[in-house]
């Protein structure tokens, strides 16, 4: 019997892939690398080529964007068990935001082109992968909208108190 190497056992245990059909693990294993990042080290950069998908193993990363006059601003903080980076999925395959480690961090890095190619070839795998992605994206969209709603309420409250409306 083949024994599982260290990286494969991390992949099997990652929540993003929880409950995955065992036949699909090899699509991830065959294009994976464990990457270590130091504090403040950049993972990817806005407008750069989006070639990888990441699962966070340990540490903490920030999704960021550059705002003139303010520098890099954090959009979202992500931790162990979460997934990072979607821009490799669709053309133009360019990062929309930047990301860097805000703690010493370990990421499992997958080759995006490989996952895309296998998803097109094997629709059972493709459906499984893209459904997991869509589910997380929707949860993040709903979370971001809730932040927007909270902010609107806070602004409205301040304006009401100041008698501006």
């Amino acid at each position, binding site marked *: 019997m083949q024994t599982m190497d260290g990286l494969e056992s991390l992949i099997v245990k990652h929540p993003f892939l929880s409950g995955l059909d065992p036949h699909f693990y090899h699509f991830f294993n065959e294009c994976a690398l464990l990457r270590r990042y130091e504090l403040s080290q950049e993972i990817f950069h806005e407008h750069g080529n989006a070639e990888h998908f990441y699962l966070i193993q340990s540490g903490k990363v920030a999704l960021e964007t550059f705002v003139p006059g303010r520098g890099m601003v954090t959009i979202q903080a992500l931790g162990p068990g979460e997934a990072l980076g979607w821009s490799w999925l*669709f053309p133009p395959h360019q990062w929309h935001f930047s990301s860097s480690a805000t703690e010493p961090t370990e990421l499992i890095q997958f080759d995006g082109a490989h996952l895309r190619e296998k998803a097109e070839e094997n629709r059972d795998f493709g459906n499984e992968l893209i459904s997991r992605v869509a589910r997380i994206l929707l949860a993040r969209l709903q979370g971001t909208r809730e932040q*927007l709603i909270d902010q609107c309420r806070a602004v409205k409250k301040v304006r009401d108190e100041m008698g501006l409306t």
Partner: protein
Amino acid sequence: MNELYETIAEHAFFSGMTPEHLAVLSACAREAEFKAGDVLIREGEPANRFYLMQSGKIALEAHELADGTVPIQTLCPGEVVGWSWLFPPFVWHLQALALEPTVVVILDGAHLLNAAEWDHDFGYELMKRVAQVVIHRLQATRKQLLRQEIESIMEG
């Protein structure tokens, strides 16, 4: 063939779908018209419909009993409305309101989920389109949030 087959085939969201998959979509489709002010989707109610916009304008908003509504997004012809039928708990998160006379094609969410479960090729094509639109909305919403944060800091 369902009379809405062509309408669905021409909708930007389903561009590139095969005739077989378009037949699956049109099998659960109906057209509906709304007047300005009509509510299409009510926050908290069971979510089982996917809307393809044909004409008109729809506002997505968070409904607040005490302080009115918070606008989230305005949607135009060629766009789609409603994702909550895709994943549990299958409950609408927001309210959708017609701002103008609006025509939509409504697809049955449960039918789409069954078809996706049964035919993974169809599921892949459907979810790929969902993911692509949701990524754009997520990116746009994050930028909107950021702009709003910066504005409120400047004001404060």
